[in-house]
C-alpha cells in the first residue's frame, strides 16, 4: 500500500518509492533516504512529532512530520 512516512505507525516497515526533491534536503538523501531503500519507524515523539527512523538498515535519524510527508513509501505486508 502506498502512503507517506508521516502516516506510518511505530514499528511499521516500508520501502521508499519517491522523495520530493525540491522539498527534501540533500543531507537527508546522503543519510540514506533514497528510493528503493528500506525504512522502519522506531519511535514517534510523545507529541506526535518528530519521527525517529531507521533508514537503509543502520542509519538512525529523526525528522519532522513536515519532512516525512514528502517521502512516499510502500508498506511491507506483515
Amino acid at each position, binding site marked *: 500500500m502506498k502512503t507517506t512516512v508521516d502516516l506510518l505507525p511505530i514499528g511499521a516497515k516500508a520501502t521508499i518509492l519517491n522523495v520530493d*526533491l*525540491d522539498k*527534501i*534536503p*540533500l*543531507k*537527508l*538523501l*546522503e*543519510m*540514506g533516504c*533514497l*528510493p528503493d*531503500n528500506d525504512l522502519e519507524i*522506531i*519511535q514517534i*515523539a*510523545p*507529541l*506526535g*512529532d*518528530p519521527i*525517529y527512523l531507521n533508514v*537503509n*538498515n*543502520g*542509519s*538512525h*535519524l*529523526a*525528522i*519532522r512530520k*513536515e*519532512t516525512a510527508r514528502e517521502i512516499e513509501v510502500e508498506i511491507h505486508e506483515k
Partner: protein
Amino acid sequence: MSIQNITVALIGNPNTGKTSVFNQLTGLNQQVGNYPGITVEKKLGFSKLPNNIKANILDLPGTYSLNASSIDENVVIELLLNKNDKLYPDVAVVVTDVENLKRNLLLFTQIKDLEIPTILVINMTDRMKPKGITLDIPYLEEQLKTKIVLVSTRKGIGIEELKKQIVEYKSLSTEPCLNASVIDVEYFDKLRKAFPNQLLYKLWLVITQDVNFLNLDRNEIRSSFTKSHSDLKRLQQKETIKRYQFINETLKIGQKIDTANATDLRSKLDKVLTHKIFGYAIFFGILLLIFQSIFDWSSVPMEFIDQTFADLAAYAKNQLPPGEFTNLISEGIIPGIGGIVIFIPQIAFLFLFISVLEESGYMSRVVFLMDKIMRRYGLSGKSVVPLISGTACAIPAIMSARNIENWKERLITMLVTPFITCSARLPVYAIIIALIIPEKRLLGLFSLQGATLMILYLLGFGMAIFSAFILNKSLKLKTKSYFVVEMPNYKLPLFKNVAINVIEKTKAFVFGAGKIILALSVILWFLGSHGPKKDFVKAESIVLEKAKIEKQTDANYIADEISSYKLEHSYIGIIGKSIEPIIRPLGYDWKIGIAVVSSFAAREVFVGTLATIYSVGSHNSEETTIKNRMEAEVYPDGKKVFNFATGVSLLLFYAFAMQCISTLAIVKKETNSWKWPLIQLVFMSGFAYITALIAFQVLK
C-alpha cells in the same frame, strides 16, 4: 636518518569516534585553536610514528559528505581542495563506525575521488561480536581500493597498526573506487575537455559548492558549465544514488550481519529514554543532578580555593618589603587570579556533564523529545544543546547553535542563550546570596541559599523562553528549512575523551577569562591607588586635621579614614562618583558601580573588582575573605551597603543584563552583523536596569 614530517587528516561522519582515534594517536599532545577568521575549532595534534616520522594530525570537523551545508563542513572541503594549504594532508584517514558502515562509506568514496592517499579505519570493532557482524577485509580492500585498519578505541586495539599504515602511505592507491561521472556522461566529458589538468571531481565540487578554489577562477568554470539550480540538485541526487548503489553492492558481499546474534540494547533504552513520561522525568532528573553538582558539590573546593588565595595574599603582604610592588601583588594580582581559579570546580563539573551527555548519545534523544515543545517558542529541539551548554558559557553555546538548519530558529536560539545563567555569573550570585540569604534549611531539607540559586536559574531560563516567544512572533523571516538529527547508538563515554575535553575546555576558559581579569585587576589597582595630585597626596594631612578638630584619637579609626579618603579621591573614586547618579536608584554605591561597569568585560570580574577595591581601601593587612570585607562595608550613616534590597537588585541585574563583550563578539561573528548583538545589549541591559530598579525601590 633525519626526522620526516607528514600531515595526516582525520575525516569522518559525526559519531564515528573520530575524536577518540585522534586522542589515542596524540594523547595530550594537542593544540586547540580556531581557523583564521572563523570560529570553527581547529584541533591539531602530534604523534611519533615508526621510522623517525613525526606526524601532524589534524582532526577535521565531522561531516556527512563533501556537499557542505555549514561552515564546519566548508573547512573540510576548502582544505582538501587546496593543495597549497600548509595543512594539505599527505594522507587522509577516514574513520567509520562498524555499525554504520553503509552511511559512513559515502564520504569515503568522495574522498577517494580527490585522489588523496586514503586509509579506511573501521572503528568500534568491539561491537562486531555483539551485533553479529563479520567483514571480508581482503574483498573490501580490493573493492574500495584502500588499506583497512580495524580499530577499537575502547579496547585500545589497532592504533599501532594504524600508525604503521600511515608510515606506508606512499604505497596506498589513489585511484577512485567508482566512476561517478556516468550520471551525466556528456556533461562531464565536456568539463574534462575544458579543464584537462584538473581533477574532475574537484571541478564538480567547485560548481556545486560555495567554496574557494585557488588555481581556477570559479566564475570561469561556473559561467560555461552552470546549470539551473534544480538540475544541479538532481545531478547531486543522482550522484548520491550512484554512490549508495556501489556501497550497497560492495557490502552485500563484504559484510555479513547475523541478526540472530544481535543483542538490542538500543531499542530497549530508546523505549525508556524517549517514553512520554519516563523520558521527560529522566531528563528533568539529569538537569537536577547537574545543578546539584554546581550548587552543592563544588562549594567545598571553592571555599578551599577562596581561603587559600586570601591566605596567600596575606602571606605575600607580610613577607615582601612594603611598597608599591607588594601592593600590586597582594592587592591586585593575587585576588585577581583567585577570582578565576575559584571557577574551576564549577566549570569542570559542567563540561563533565555536557561531554558525558554528548558522548553517550543521550543528547540526541533530548533533542528528539524536546523538538515539538521548543518549536512552540520559535526554537528547535536542537536548541536544547546551546541552552544547556549556556549554563557553562554562552560562547561555545552560541557556536553550537550552528547545527540548527533553520535560520530563524538558530537566530532566536543565539539571541536568547545569554539569558541562561552561565558559570561566570555563579560567583556573583554565590557571594551575594551568602550575604543576604540566611543559612537556613526549609523543612530541614532544602537549603534556602540553594533554593535562591535555583530560582535565579529558572528566572534566566524563563526569560530565555519568554523572549524566544516574543521574537518568534515579531521577527518576520521567511525561512525554508528542515530538521534532521542523527540518533547515534548509545555508548559508554570513554574516560580519556571526557577527561581531555574537560581539561581543554577548562583551560581555555581559565586562560581566556584569566587574561582579562588579570589585566583589569592590575588597571583597577593602579587607578585605585593613584589619584590627581591635590586631594590624593594630601589625604593624610587632611584627615589628621579633621581628626584634630573632632578630637578623634583612635589610631585605627584614623587609618581607616585615611584609606577611604584616598580611595574616594583616586582616579577610580572619581570615575565611580561620576556614574553614581545612574546606579544610585538601584541601590548601589559607587564601588559596586565600578564593579558593575567592569563586569562588561566579563561578569566574573565583579567579585575580583570588589576584592581589589576593598583591599586597596582597607588599611589593615590581616587576612580576610572577600565576603567578610563586603559584609563590613557600611555607608557613612552606619547602614550596611549589602542589605537585602541592594542584594536582590544586584541579583536581578546580573540575571538579565547582557554583560559580556566576548558574547557580543561571537554573536556578531555568527550572525555576520552588528544589528543582533546591539539589540541584545540594549534590550537585555535595559530590561535588567528596570527590574533591578523596581526591586530596590519596592524592597528598600
